[in-house]
């Protein structure tokens, strides 16, 4: 059980990082980005392609992939900020659904639908607790999740940039009238989450089932984690990701429960919704 839970922690760290990205996007640019992990997946696949087929050194290829992930996200953000500036969250998010489909299909075309020979960035154990080995990947992803969440919080709470971002998210039109450059800031948020997501996927992908679909669908457990924080709280998003990863790891240990592993994110989402829906909320004010 413990063995499985700790093994699942690497995935949990990845969920947590993606959940932080989703929360940021939801808070700052009013979108649930269904293409969040697909962007990361695409960046990674390009990196693998560069490394395996063109012989680019793997650190350089990975860097190129991460930059590409950021650029993809930036383009998408630019489209949304330009054409859907006034649209509601639903429409903005639906656009990312179309992009998710687009990226998975493109990955099939360019790289095939089989897992790729990822070169692990990190390998080997970091330390052992009670006879259970914790890998370097686990340590790094968990640290990354916590760090990203802390950094985002610090930026939002302490810096002038953070104040502008929050103003933009709470009252976009007012903020724009005050002279805050809405579009560049939104595209900046998209770019940053694209880079972070690709980085996280690059670290974990070699040790995961890494066909395009699986990597793109990582957005589901990430969304479950983000939902724990109501798509608003970063700390709960991180916690949700880690717990979900460990739970999946623990369940995967048992053969009889292994199907449950797939449904775990879904069940978590449904349970959280049941819990949070106790209070009646109405749509748009008056």
């Amino acid at each position, binding site marked *: 059980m413990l063995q499985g839970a700790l093994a699942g922690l690497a995935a949990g760290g990845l969920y947590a990082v993606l959940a932080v990205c989703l929360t940021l996007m939801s808070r700052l640019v009013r979108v*649930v980005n*269904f293409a969040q992990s697909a962007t990361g997946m695409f960046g990674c696949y390009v990196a693998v392609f560069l490394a395996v087929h063109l012989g680019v050194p793997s650190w350089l290829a990975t860097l190129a992939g991460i930059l590409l992930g950021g650029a993809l996200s930036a383009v998408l953000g630019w*489209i*949304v900020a330009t*054409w*859907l500036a006034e*649209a*509601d*969250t*639903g*429409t903005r*998010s*639906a*656009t990312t*659904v*179309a*992009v*998710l*489909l*687009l990226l*998975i*299909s*493109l990955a*099939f*075309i360019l790289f095939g639908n089989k897992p790729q020979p990822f070169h692990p960035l990190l390998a080997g154990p970091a330390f052992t607790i009670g006879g259970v080995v914790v890998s370097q990947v686990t340590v790094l992803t968990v640290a990354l999740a916590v760090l990203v969440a802390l950094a985002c919080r610090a930026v939002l709470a302490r810096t002038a940039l953070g104040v502008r971002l929050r103003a933009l998210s709470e009252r976009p039109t007012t903020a724009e009238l005050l002279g805050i450059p809405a579009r560049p800031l939104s595209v900046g948020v998209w770019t940053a989450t694209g880079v972070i997501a690709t980085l996280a996927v690059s670290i974990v992908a070699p040790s995961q089932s890494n066909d395009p*679909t699986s990597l793109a*669908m990582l*957005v*589901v457990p990430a*969304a*479950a984690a983000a*939902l724990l924080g109501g798509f608003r709280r970063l700390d709960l998003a991180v916690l949700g990701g880690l717990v979900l990863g460990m739970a999946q790891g623990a369940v995967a240990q048992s053969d009889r429960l*292994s*199907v449950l592993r*797939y*449904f775990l*994110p*879904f069940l978590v*989402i*449904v349970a959280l*919704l*049941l819990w*949070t*829906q106790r209070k*009646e*909320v*109405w*749509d*748009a004010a*008056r």
Partner: protein
Amino acid sequence: MRLAERLVPFAVAAAAVAVGYALSVGLAGYFVYLGVSAVVAAIALLGLGVVTGTAGMISLCQLTFAAVGAFVVSACNVAGVPGGFGTWLLLGGLAAAVAGVLVGLPALRLRGITLAVVTLGLAAAADLTLVQIQFPGATEGLSVERPEAFSDDRSYFLFAVLVLVACGLVVHFLRRGRWGSSWHLVAFSERGTAAVGAGVRTSKLTAFAVSAALGGISGGLLTGQVGLAFPASFTAIQSLALYVLAIMSGAHLIDMAVFGALLWVAVPELLKRWGVPQDWGFVVFGVLGVQALTGRGNLGTAVRALWYRRRSGRTAGVGLTEPVPDVAPLPPGDPVLEVRGLSVSFGHVTALSEVDITVPEHGILGVIGPNGAGKSTLVDAISGFLPRATGTATLGGRPLTGSPARRARAGLRRTFQQDRVPPGLTVGAYVRFVARRRLTGRELDGALVFFGCPAARTPLSRVDAGARRLVEVVGHLLAKPRVLLLDEPAAGLPHEEHVAFGRRLRQVPARFGVSVLLIEHDLDLVRSVCDTLTVLDFGRVLASGPQADVLADPAVLKAYMGETELL
């Protein structure tokens, strides 16, 4: 005329069957097979048209429901359930509907995007699970038996067309009925839906269930086509593609669902012929989907515009110039709506404090006050949209509690300051839905004419903002509530129409048997309509009583009128 109109859907259905028969006989064998695939996709798209196109929810697991249908059909085949393929198909649809309700139930009370997250989660999980458990009979290679009369490919195509036509008819009539109106309304405004006494959850769940049932039927049909169900036909990615296709083809229209299905089959087929990998099909759908969502217009409306041309682009407005025969107003009776000690605070801001309001039977109470005085908050609180409000309200002596829908059914209706009228319906369909009772044509037309509204057949998308507000008022009046709360109903009207509107409003208690609480800025209108007035200022009642007394009150003059307007 009306009979002819009613026969139109059946005529279209008969024509569709005839075309289906001709195709089943005339097409080459391979195309007949592709045709079945198109019909299967069309039924799934019809379902998405209901949930996404009409009710405005994002559902990303349509093929998971199809898999439920396929599973039931396969299981029935293995178990040899009596009734044959047709019965199994219906059972599959039913099972999928149940699954839809179970999935939708927790997600539906939270708005918008959560349903998309839930359905994508389900699609991803079901996808992986199906690969592991497989469909019943699949490992043994136990082929599903088609209906006896339709066992070869050509006749099975005809069978599929018959199923599609039946589904199309059901969707058409559902959309014309009460459920359909509620789907349109809930997509446009949940508050508006609750305010007419329709349950927001019921509206969403019925849309979701109907959509899932159609998905289930399409899955069952697919099983009959192939003989065996395979997980590869029901992947999450295909569900995503189908959703995007529904958006870009505008599948809330039945003909566009069929058009989308043709694309679904034709695009990969054409790519195959041109030697392009078929995955490019989904890339094409993805690009067109982004295009459609970013408001550059979708393919469906473009095709439709070519097909139908624009019949008339003119918008309809209000015509209140015709004089109406006067009806003697009834003397105000006992209090019918009594509100005592109503307080509302948002955090530290007190929006209303200890407000008392009384609306008499057959009377019209005007509520006036400067901006921010709490007038709309008052309406929200009384109609149940602010559950944390304190104080008591009674309607006809009974305590008024519970959700907005419950209060609406108890006889308290309200209108909104902002437009809550869904553009997808006609004036008549909307009014009938809001009234929530059987209306005669004369009653409906009479009320519309009385308020100078456009004719019942006019689509609401072609009615201007001011007239839409009045259509809303007409609907609520025809519901015959005890009390109707009107939140600035004249706001969208040209100024000269205000007084004419006031004259009609004055007759509302006598004509419709409804007492009115009117919030209005236009003092001319208030003076001509209201017997009694309540003045709010900073959330408190400043003065209350007969119109003349209140308007002469020095405190009211000072606080509300300021120095600029003299009475």
